[in-house]
């Protein structure tokens, strides 16, 4: 089997694992009741307020900012850079005539995405250093915590290599990616840096639903952050808790 076929099959498998795995967790979170009101107070008293709170958490890492400025700057830098890099990469999977192309292909988006790789590496490097330098963080770190940082650093590093040192055949790559979308396996460029880059991305996709990377969907389901503070105004009752009340009618 050629590298193209191996990578194509790996991409299909990884995509399936990522989508099905994360979807299963999201369904699990959504279906599990939160029987008690436990927002960390002071909390918003309206649903709109919860949206604002969630936005400050997801977009600005508000709680982390309160906790530790170093973790915040490294963590936020990494995540925001990752987002920019992802935007840039959309170019490789959407057709040239897509309505998104003027936006994604815009040189500002592309330039930010390109240099975001450095910010990613810097942020990840900072987080890695914290794990080693701060005794408390070292204590709570498992090998997988370091491994995951190294994995993403590897992705960023090989990406930067291709942007600045060792260009790959981007036209060929795009044909491969667009081919994948229609189950038509096209040849993949065979330079090692690209193959490593893609292999690491495939690993990342596979471990996503079985690791702490679940923090991404998890934060949206965190009752301490997504609940409205209205327990006095509105009765909150989980289905399993309602069942307990069968005895009540008789008792009072």
């Amino acid at each position, binding site marked *: 089997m050629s590298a193209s076929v191996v990578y194509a099959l790996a991409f299909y498998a990884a995509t399936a694992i990522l989508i099905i795995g994360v979807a299963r967790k999201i369904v*699990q*979170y959504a279906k*599990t*009741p*939160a*029987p*008690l*009101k*436990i927002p*960390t*107070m*002071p*909390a918003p*008293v309206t649903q709109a307020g919860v949206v604002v709170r969630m936005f400050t*958490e997801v977009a600005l*890492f508000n*709680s*982390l900012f*309160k*906790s*530790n400025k170093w*973790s915040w700057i490294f*963590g936020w830098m990494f995540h925001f850079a990752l987002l920019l890099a992802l935007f840039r990469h959309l170019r490789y999977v959407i057709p040239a005539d897509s309505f998104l192309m003027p936006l994604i292909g815009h040189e500002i988006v592309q330039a930010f995405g390109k240099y975001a790789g450095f910010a990613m590496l810097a942020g990840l490097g900072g987080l890695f250093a*914290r794990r080693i330098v*701060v*005794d*408390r*963080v070292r*204590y*709570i*770190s*498992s*090998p*997988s*915590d370091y491994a995951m940082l190294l994995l993403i650093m590897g992705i960023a590093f090989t990406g930067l290599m291709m942007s600045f040192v060792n260009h790959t055949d981007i036209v060929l790559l795009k044909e491969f990616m667009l081919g994948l979308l229609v189950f038509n396996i096209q040849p993949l460029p065979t330079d090692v840096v690209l193959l490593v880059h893609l292999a690491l991305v495939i690993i990342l996709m596979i471990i996503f639903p*079985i*690791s*702490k990377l679940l*923090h991404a969907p*998890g*934060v949206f*389901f*965190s*009752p*301490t*952050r997504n609940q409205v*503070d209205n*327990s*006095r105004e*509105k*009765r*909150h*009752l*989980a289905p*399993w*808790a309602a069942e*307990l009340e069968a005895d*009540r009618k008789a*008792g*009072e």
Partner: protein
Amino acid sequence: MADFDVPELQEYSVVPKLEEGTMAHISSFKAKPKFQGPLGYPDELVDNWEEKVITKMDELRGKYRGFQVFLDSCVKCGACTDKCHYYLGTKDPKNMPVARQDLLRKVYRRYSTFAGKFFGALGIPGFVGAADLNKEVLDDWYTYFHQCSQCRRCSVYCPYGIDTAEISMAAREIMSSVGVSQKYCNEIIGKAQTIGNNLGLPEKALIDTLEGLEEEVEEDTGVAVKFPLDQKGADILLITPSADFFAEPHVDGLIGYAKVFHEAGASWTMSSHASEAANFGMFIGSYENMRTLSLRIRKAAIDLGVKRIVFGECGHAWRVAYSFLHTLAGPFDFLDQNYPIPQHICEYTNDLIENDELKFDKSENDHMTVTFHDSCNVARASRMGDKPGGQMEIPRAVIKAVCNNYVDMAEDTIGEATFCCGGGGGLLTDDLMEIRVKGAQPRMEAYKSVVDNGGVTHLAAICAICKAQFSKILPKYGYGMTDIVSVHQLVSDAIILTGSEDDTSEDSDTNESE
């Protein structure tokens, strides 16, 4: 009790370097078999407990979304590692919130996740932070989940809102389900469920105590302030922690509530059936036990025919009341919907103050400079008033209405960032004195700073546990046992009762008050 050194208070709190195992020797007394059955738990450690632990954990993951999300979402970023007062006071790394959670999470990872099973099969579960469950792990759980006061300070700083209190409650519930429970919590729940309060005071003792208080207040003030019990048809049912009936300084708070009700001309009563605001069912993570205790309050309210429920000064009780009572024992359609259900005594008093219905002689408190200790469950798990943060503002507004001298402690030790007193969450027992003393260090350092630099003489609180804890802990750190005061004790000292010797309204005022 082992000997230990009381930490030396520093000018500025520093995050200590960790020292493994400094608190490993602490083990709270276990519940005796006869107290387990009535709460629905096995008498002692059951056979096959390993299996049953996992089954129970699975059950709880299916019942509590927070538990499941928190187990999955931690990225070990370290944001919480320096936020727990027990870590700051003991240096024991297992008292870092994430490490405490990991005691449980590593077992979840091992038996209930693909990563843990996979690397477990390879013989290296530790690679992904998973570990086998064994007796040592269970012992660690017992030790360290009883060194968490469920204060939620860590959850403020967690980027995913992971609340160690939820993990610690689940862990205690799991342990209880295999027959390993703490004596202090479970015996108290037993008393509250059979007698009506945590102290096991029967109705007769309550009557005697309240009569004694009536005599005392009348002697002091010349005014016949009533402390009604089981008075049918009263408007307001006061639910207060039973410590208020006799402990110091709690009882001075109760006297304060009674004086406020008296001055407001309110018709109120306490209940012998529900003579306890505290609800230790929360501490052991038991929805069922928490519910059973809450239903006593519902029953009392129905039986007495009251229109309102007001809670006295108690931190976790206010959490259960504010956040959970409606869920556990509602709906309360039989109460007057024009008032918050339930209402906190500070909200009640503050409303009267804002409407100018109470008169104070603030100079009565001039011998004190007061600071306020935000109790964790009030600050981070409840609210007062209409606006977020009212739980911080309203008690301070009450204090400032009755005291001339008030100073806040440092910003990062109050409000949502408040440090626990060190005795919450079911830790207020003598067999845990070492962790209580050490866990109080961050609060004591903040207090020392305002004593040294702000002339503060007294620490006011609105929580029965905080008050009991501080009256024990303050002397260990060289402060007076009576430096801790109830907020309504300050109210009590300053309030001018109509018709008392201090009441000069008829001489000075022009009889505005009807």
